[in-house]
């Protein structure tokens, strides 16, 4: 039974006040990132801008969200303090998302292009880009 005791009694957390400080710092970082994301999201609404710039801002927001995820998993969930092999068994399978996201978004946009090229049935076409700027209440 000895192994069981060592198993559960192993704490790998920095002690006391130091940790609480780290939590407070992380909270501030998460809040600030969220506010930056909101400002970027709202700027796309408030100012008319080119599609490419919009895409760039969306990319920035995605990267900021990934940073938030990193802080939540690393600090709040303490994954960073675990044994490396354990971290790898969680993180490596998630790499499939790289293919998953790329392949399916490509599929979606290809679907759109094919429909726009070959399907001549009356569909709602987009005044898309200019539409989001200005004059709704």
């Amino acid at each position, binding site marked *: 039974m000895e192994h069981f005791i060592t198993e559960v009694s192993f704490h790998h957390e920095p002690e006391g006040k130091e940790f609480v400080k780290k939590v407070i710092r992380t909270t501030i970082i998460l809040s600030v990132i969220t506010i930056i994301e909101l400002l970027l999201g709202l700027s796309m609404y408030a100012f008319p801008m080119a599609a490419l710039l919009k895409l760039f801002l969306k990319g920035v*927001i*995605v990267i900021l969200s990934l940073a938030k995820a990193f802080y939540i998993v690393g600090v709040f969930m303490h994954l960073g303090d675990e044994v490396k092999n354990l971290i790898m068994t969680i993180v490596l399978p998630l790499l499939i998302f790289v293919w998953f996201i790329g392949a399916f978004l490509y*599929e979606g946009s290809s679907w759109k292009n094919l429909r726009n090229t070959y399907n001549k049935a009356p569909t709602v076409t987009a005044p898309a880009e200019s539409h989001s700027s200005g004059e709704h209440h």
Partner: protein
Amino acid sequence: MATAQAQVDSKWWSGGKSPFNVEYGKLMMWYFLMSDAFTFGAFLISYGTIRFSQNYWPDPNEVFNALPFTGHANLPLAFVSLMTFVLIVSSVTMVLAVHAGHHNDKKGVIKWMIWTVIGGIAFLGCQAWEWTHLITGDHAVLINGEIKHIGTTVTMNPWGPHVTIPGQEGHISTPGPVAFGGYFFGITGFHGFHVLSGVVINIVMLIMAWNGTFERKGHYLMIEKAGLYWHFVDLVWVFVFLCFYLI
């Protein structure tokens, strides 16, 4: 130190200790969360696929612009920012509950668990308001040459491109892609259900802590596992927030 470390490493898998240095339940909680991440990921990617396949998609700033008690004021993303903040704060109080648990501080655990439960319930309340607002908030939409007033549901989407009709006042739009409502309610609903079950789990943990169950056990590892689940719910919200509200 280095040799001691090497000795430990060589015996790591030879039995007698947990190779991953965590307790069984915690490890399994991690694997459950990983599988849940795939479920949410698949939902969000499916949403992305459909969104990429459409020529037009509603602008979230236009759809989510209401705040309780402000009438028809145009406040894009204000309410959802509040919801995000509520969830982040309840995640922080959960961290502090787990931290108190590490120090076998029963009072601290109870105090922070109560705040976490309150945060979870507040988030659910906000979501209930938002859903109600979307479903019951009517908008003038031109359907088959007639103007109808519809809300956002899984079969109706009033957020299509705007049209101007001579002799008609106000904003009139055409129907938007129907998938919008289905994905929005489906995915935020699935997340909301996770929040609900998280709140139930946290209440159970609170009662057990209150009754001294963990004190008798000598450790608060159950709080740690509930904490992992709760943080995961917060983590998923980061991506739901990203996909539905920001981009």
